[in-house]
């Protein structure tokens, strides 16, 4: 469960303080599939960073399974991410010097899991990329890279998966395949999915849409199944 209470984030900018998020509150129950939408500059990415513990709020709190992220040290947040959080980025963010299998194994190995390599290859097999295990990211197509990124995000069986414009760099057919994978994982393993996008068609695949504008929640509604 992800609980957000009166979240505010400000940055010093050119001698002034720029408030990017004002007093945002909502709760995302386990197993939800939520899309956070809004135009450029509405504060989507900032909110995602705070939800995942990549950044700390100026005021308010984020509770992930009861742990208040703002009070944890950076390393404690890192450990929490390693255990409970998965990420998918618009530009894939694979480590360019690691092979596909090695990229997937990283979160497992950071937790000291044995046989991480074997598990990485199993995951690659599941996303249909078994034959690309030893390829570097630069040797993969955009769709393949995003599938590897998705496998990496799911390697640790996270409680929450954050996806930031996951189809932004892909053609529509490949993008659709990625979303199907997300839906499958949400349905089959009950992983909470938080999707950030400005693409309304993509957002409509979620079960709930939180709309941001100028750093505030302007709309929060469940979609009919």
């Amino acid at each position: 469960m992800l609980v957000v209470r009166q979240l505010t984030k400000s940055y010093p900018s050119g001698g002034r303080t720029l408030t990017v998020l004002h007093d945002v509150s909502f709760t995302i129950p386990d197993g939800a599939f939520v899309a956070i939408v809004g135009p450029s500059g509405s504060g989507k990415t900032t909110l995602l960073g705070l939800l995942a513990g990549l950044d700390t709020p100026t005021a308010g709190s984020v509770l992930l399974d009861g742990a208040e992220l703002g009070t944890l040290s950076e390393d404690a947040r890192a450990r929490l991410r390693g255990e409970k959080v998965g990420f998918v980025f618009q530009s894939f963010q694979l480590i360019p010097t690691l092979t596909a299998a090695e990229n997937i194994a990283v979160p497992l190995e950071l937790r000291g899991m044995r046989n991480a390599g074997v598990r990485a290859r199993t995951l690659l097999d599941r996303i249909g990329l078994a034959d690309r295990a030893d390829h570097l990211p630069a040797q993969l197509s955009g769709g393949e890279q995003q599938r590897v990124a998705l496998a990496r995000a799911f390697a640790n069986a996270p409680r929450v998966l954050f996806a930031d414009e996951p189809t932004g760099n892909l053609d529509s057919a490949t993008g659709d395949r990625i979303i199907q994978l997300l839906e499958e994982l949400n349905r089959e393993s009950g992983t909470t999915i938080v999707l950030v996008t400005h693409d309304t068609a993509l957002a409509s695949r979620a079960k709930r849409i939180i709309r941001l504008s100028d750093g505030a929640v302007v709309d929060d509604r469940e979609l009919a199944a």
Partner: protein
Amino acid sequence: MSARWRDLARLAWRDSRTARSRLLLYMSAISLGVAALVAIDSYSANVVRSIREQSRELLGGDLSLSSRTAFPPSVDSLLDTLQRGGIPVGRSTTFTSMALVPHAPAPRLVQVNAVGPHVPFYGTIETDPPGRYAELQQGHTVLVDGSLLVELNAKLGDSLSLGSARFAIRGTLQNVPGDVGIASSLGPRVYIAEKWVPETKLLVFGSRAQYDALLKLPAGTDPKTVVNQHQPTIDSAHVRTRTVQDTERSLTYDIQQLDRFLGVVALVALLLGGVGVASAIRAYIEEKRDPIAVLRVLGATSRQVLAVYLLETGVLGLAGAVVGAILGVAAQMALPHVAAGVVPVTVVPRLEPRAIGTGIAIGVWVAVIFALLPILGVRRISPLEAIRHDAAGAPVRRILSDWPRLLAFVALAASVVLIAIGRAGNVRRGIAMSAGVGAALVLLAIAAALVARVTRRVLKEHWPFVVRQGLANLYRPANQTRAVMLALGFGAFLMSTLYLVQRNLLARLTASAVETRANLAFFDVQSDQVKSVDSLIRAARAPVLQQVPIVPMRIAAIGSRSVSDALHDSRRASWALRREYRSSYRDTLITSEKLVAGTWFNAADTAARSGPWPISLDADLAADLGVTLGDTITWDVQGVRIPSIVKNLRQVTWARFEPNFFVIFAPRALASAPQTTVFLTRVMDPTARAALQRAVVVHDPNVSTIDLALIQQAIDGIVDKVSIAIRFMALFSVATGILVLLSAVAAARRQRLREGVLLKTLGATRAQIGRIMLSEYTVLGLLSAATGLVLSLGGAWALMHFLFDSPFSPAGPPLAVLALIIVALTAGVGLSSSRDVFAETPMAALREQ
């Protein structure tokens, strides 16, 4: 400047705006090399200029004649004739003796300078109290080096015995033109008037002395003409001549040799700096991919982009070189203090525009030529990258099919060779040096490739993740293994080679002392003194380790040709024909000798005979004399002709604390010839050693003694002085190595930062990231140090074997310490320059999209 170039220059200036200070830091890799070059060249130019200005003072006159024996009547009458013709002549005699002060525990070996009136004609010998040199001719007085007063615990006014004569100490020597300070550490100087020499009774049979006559020629007279006029007299008397020009030439030559050697070390620092610039520029271009892509979108041709970055490199290289020149001038001002006592002139530091200009020019050129290869990479940046980050640039082509890169590579290699030739002073040495540097770099590059390959093989799945991750960084794409190994390995190679050579040279002296176990020598013992010296040694309960007879002689003829005849033969070295030999006779080889040709003396050789006596020659001397086994040499032993036949050749290790000889006769051959004897003994207790020296010198004043501890101290002093100069230069290489390491780390910084941030996003703690980097840099440091050190074993062996003709023994523990320092340095520099990887928040991963 055309408008087009002006535009490009403006673009270059603006482009560098955000990175100028960082780029300047990388350019400081060049600065240190330039500083070293400028310092050495300026200092050497200062010294050469000072020598030119002070050369008459250095010689003390316009022309000097010198001989190892007292001048024969022919030379004496020549000097009288010259003097009557209005040419002032001054005389001096230099020899070693024991000096003794009544209450001092031990006598001290000193260099006695017995000078006649008017010597020197030029320059002044400064004393404390001032003006005492002028009074030297008046009474039984001496002037001594201040160090002698300390060693003998004496003061002004005390009486000092030299042989049978006594003198009052009137003052200390402050400055003697032409005397190198360290020379006096072997034996402090003592000045007396020449007229007292007979009274000392020190110059007896077999004593070594140098007899000099100094001439002051009328202004405008060329000393060479005077020499040419009297050449036959001079030649037949075995007298050497020296003019002001000779002094100047030989001193200048020595200084230039030192300059070349130190210059090579400086050049290595500069080349290392070049490697640093190359990796810094590579990192810079990588960072500039986006702006370059944008420039390309806006219509800039790849040639224009190339010109922009070349301009930036040139200007920054110039700035780096100018900073280096300023540093170099500062170091030049400090060098006279470092080198005090090594150089025979008073060096006045002056700016040397030529040295500064050359240093800056070479610096800029090295910066540009090394930067050229990475700068050519801008051609491959596609304008598409401006709109798509993942758009790949043009693929890297093989260097052979990419002519601009090939050309840049050839220009780089040619520049290195040309600069090396310029520095080394001749083509062969220049090529040998670049080949040596090249070979070391190629071997390091091969080692780096091997490291990458082997690491990939040995990495095991069950190793801890952070270790595997760190080690895998050694072979993964865009790794810094080669750059770091080149920089660090080369620095380690240089430092360690210098250290090993120095250590082996010193060890050679100490080892010989251990082998002979002698620590005290008595020499110039006359035949009638052998018994008394022997009994004094035994009375002190000390062993006589060696008792060696010495017979002075000259070559009279080789085969049927007289020496003067043989001198015309270009195959024979004139020094070997002219010199006085101090030979010995015995029936066994000693430990410092190895038979290399022929057979050793047998019973028949030692029996009385009428024909030529068998002799053993030093193999190198035989080569210089142009003789081999079976050839005959006739010797002049105090006027008696002794024929000999070469029976065998020996290889002699000269640097041992025991008497070694060019020529050994079979026993009996010289048994009845006039001779002196050397005794070697061992007395461990310093007080007892001093007492024995004192007893012998009091009983037989002409006998000289050498205490090995003092010799070792003196040699250590000299080696220390020289090694300070070398270390001073090596320091530039090491400092450059650190800068190169910094830029190599910076080259991979962007990638490291991105990786670090992503790892954090995926749950890595800072400690985990730190451990990954630590394992990478530790292994890099360890492998660089190991490779450099192993190479240095080869390099030092080669230097000892080919240059110093000595055996080589490696030194384990000090090298291990050096390796540890390098590893610590690498890990320290690597981690501290990766601080931003720790500091960057994972939010950057989201923002970067």
